[in-house]
């Protein structure tokens, strides 16, 4: 490439600044990604006089993080296809309910975790099967899954005389109070996510399909298979996340997991992810975004904002970030 050789005086002086501007422009999404994390973090650090990082609160944050972190990483594979999923809340509710029954029937924690993964994978495979079979947009299929899973849970809750809850809560101790296990799980999942997404055929094909399915297909990508694999990964991770979710309340109600689907989307957007998917998707969006959102939630509650208002605040932040992501310069889209 030709070097820019003739920098005149004026250019040289403003060189530093213009370099910086170019750098920010080129790395806009990375900027959004980390700046929202830094902003949220510093804001609440100041507002809470450092209590944000107190040992007690850190533990709370990690517990709150577990569920959202795992499902966001899992769903990243779906979102990078340009697909959207809004069934995750329902799937977690249904999975938690079946796990509760399994545990109450005397099964071990290991078996219960396997059951969780099987149920959740089943839901997600059904999702992509419906989408493929009826040539629906995946988000519409996930709407169907959302209603049916939520429907089953609501029905069961309303017909059972007592509330559905885990009888022997000590069985779930590993997921509820063992912080080392939680942290290890998060690290392992982050590593698995990063490797699959950046250093394996699965992730690479995923991104290509998200951008141009036709070209991907002609380059030897099995588009259908790639989609099924992404839903499979999501299913496994979400099954695992259900265990953490159940371990926080031990009960299943018609509201279990409610709102998670929106949290995932907000987290991804806060993490700088363009929801159209494709090559620009980064797994770090899932990691950074979910941490940011949990910090935001936690911080708002800590400084005394009422929970009803928290949603509103999230909504507004969502809008602002979307605005920044969608504002692309015109030259990027015109044909040459």
């Amino acid at each position, binding site marked *: 490439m030709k070097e820019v050789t003739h920098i005149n005086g004026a250019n040289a002086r403003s060189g530093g600044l213009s370099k910086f501007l170019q750098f920010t422009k080129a790395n806009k999404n990375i900027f959004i990604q980390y700046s929202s994390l830094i902003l949220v973090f510093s804001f609440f650090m100041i507002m809470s006089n450092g209590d944000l990082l107190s040992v007690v609160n850190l533990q709370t944050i990690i517990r709150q993080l577990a569920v959202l972190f795992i499902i966001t990483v899992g769903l990243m594979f779906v979102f990078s296809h340009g697909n959207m999923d809004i069934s995750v809340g329902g799937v977690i509710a249904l999975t938690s309910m079946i796990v509760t029954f399994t545990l109450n029937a005397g099964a071990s924690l290991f078996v219960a975790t396997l059951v969780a993964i099987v149920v959740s994978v089943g839901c997600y495979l059904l999702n992509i099967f419906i989408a493929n079979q009826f040539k629906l947009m995946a988000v519409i299929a996930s709407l169907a899954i959302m209603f049916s899973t939520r429907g089953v849970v609501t029905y069961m809750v309303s017909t059972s005389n007592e509330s559905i809850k885990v009888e022997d809560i000590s069985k779930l101790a590993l997921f509820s109070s063992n912080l080392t296990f939680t942290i290890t799980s998060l690290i392992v999942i982050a590593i698995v996510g990063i490797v699959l997404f950046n*250093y394996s055929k699965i992730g690479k094909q995923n*991104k290509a399909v998200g951008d141009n399915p036709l070209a991907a297909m002609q380059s030897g990508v099995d588009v259908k298979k790639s989609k099924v694999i992404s839903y499979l990964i999501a299913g496994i991770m979400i099954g695992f996340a259900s265990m953490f979710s159940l371990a926080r309340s031990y009960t299943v109600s018609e509201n279990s997991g409610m709102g998670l689907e929106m949290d995932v989307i907000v987290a991804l957007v806060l993490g700088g992810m363009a929801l159209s998917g494709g090559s620009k998707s980064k797994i770090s969006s899932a990691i950074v975004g979910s941490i940011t959102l949990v910090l935001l939630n936690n911080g708002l509650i800590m400084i005394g904002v009422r929970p009803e208002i928290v949603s509103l605040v999230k909504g507004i932040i969502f809008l602002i970030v979307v605005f920044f992501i969608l504002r692309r310069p015109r*030259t990027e889209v015109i044909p*040459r």
Partner: protein
Amino acid sequence: MDKEVFLETVNLTKKFDEVLAVDKVNMQVKLGEIKGLIGENGSGKSTISAMISGLHRITSGDIYINKKKYTPKNPLDAREKKISMIVQETGTINNLSIAENVFLGDEVRFKKNTFVNRKKMMVEAKKALEAVELDVDVTKSINTLNFEQRKLVEIARALYYNPTLFIVDETTTALSHEGRVLIHRIMRRLKSENKAVLFISHDLSELMEICDSLTVLRDGNFIRDFEKEQFDENEIKQEMVGRELEGDFYRSDYDGTSTGQVVFQAKNVSAQGLKNINLELHKGEILGIGGLSGSGMHELGKVMYGNIRLSAGEVLVYGHETPSFFQKLWKQKDKQNTGNMSPEAKPIRLTNIKTAIANKVGYVSKDRDQETLILEASVKDNLTLSALDKLDSYGLITQKAEKRFAQEQIDSLLIKCSSMNQTVRELSGGNKQKISFGKWIGNDSKILILDSPTRGVDVGVKTKMYQLLYDLKQQGYSILLISEELQELIGMSDRILLMKDGAITKEFHRSEKVDEKTLIQYMI
């Protein structure tokens, strides 16, 4: 008598961040003249024309029209000054009707009160398309047209506004022989009407025939103007690349014999636009396919790749199948037992792209932007996408392996990019073409279906590509070369099949006697 200058650029410069694409170019386009613009891939030709037609903002320098300063902010400003341009890439928008595409961005023209007068629009679109001899139902979606027809729609759009300056960016290589004749005729007509034409092409003989003067660019710099009487092929080439070009352009041997071992075959194939096609591709053979638009040659490429459903017949590929995971395990056991694998090649029916790829068949589409490239992805990701299996070791694809692979292709095809992480969308047309070529050359495909593989690449790289194809042939690769460029077919093929109206009508064997005229006779 001197012709009147219509457009003049003074120190015209364009920078994309760090990349200086056009550097202080001074150039004139005169009325009643066809001006050629030539230069290697990425030398700034498209960028200059994009600035003139308001697609790109000018970084510095000026453009004057009729001696008055002109700073277009968008394509509408250019239209007002009667400047029309055919862009190098696809300029039509999918999922709109043909008529809507003809009047893209100018629907207001048919606005009555608040509604667009559809009927009038249809009638006008029909009229516009007559100029390019395209007879189609304009209410249909643009998706029903093939690549060439879509280009014709763009030409019709440009001509509808009766341009004083008509810019044609690298369009002729997208057109078949008749399309080319048509656009040449249009350019000459405009010239005789005392309009100005700016013509960009990599086909030097075409430029020398059509143009009245030529401007040579290199690395974004103006190099030299040639007037018609100064035209000299070698001199122009030298100015273009800045050094002496060496080596033969095409292969120099006339040995068209092949091994006789059939590796790829179409048997009585009928499909959309194709009638009873029979062909055999041998190991180590370059088989050229030529024809006019509507001859079905591009469809044939898709059929051979399993991309179009057959209505009769079959496509067979002879045993290159990559073993599945379990077969591999099985074979490894086999190996231990018997010590060898069976070399027997058996025909496999090719019905979809998956079997094609499993059998090491690769395909470069003519429509690179939509069918071959992932425009948003980086150069590296594009090059590696079809070779992931090759790069994969124990389920992991390391950065190192990817980079090595990509760098090899970048070096061997002289791909001009600021880094291998640059998005492909930002590359010049020819450099995109190099990537869609390179992505199949590097992976292990033993049979290559290449549809217009050298479309829009400059002479230097063309030479490289031909050399590469010849090397591949020597190594036993088999190549189906589909091309509108007869010279290329004659220069490279062991055999040439000509197609007409969906059928193969004539076969030529490699010989010195085959020339362009003979081929054309059998095509029309």
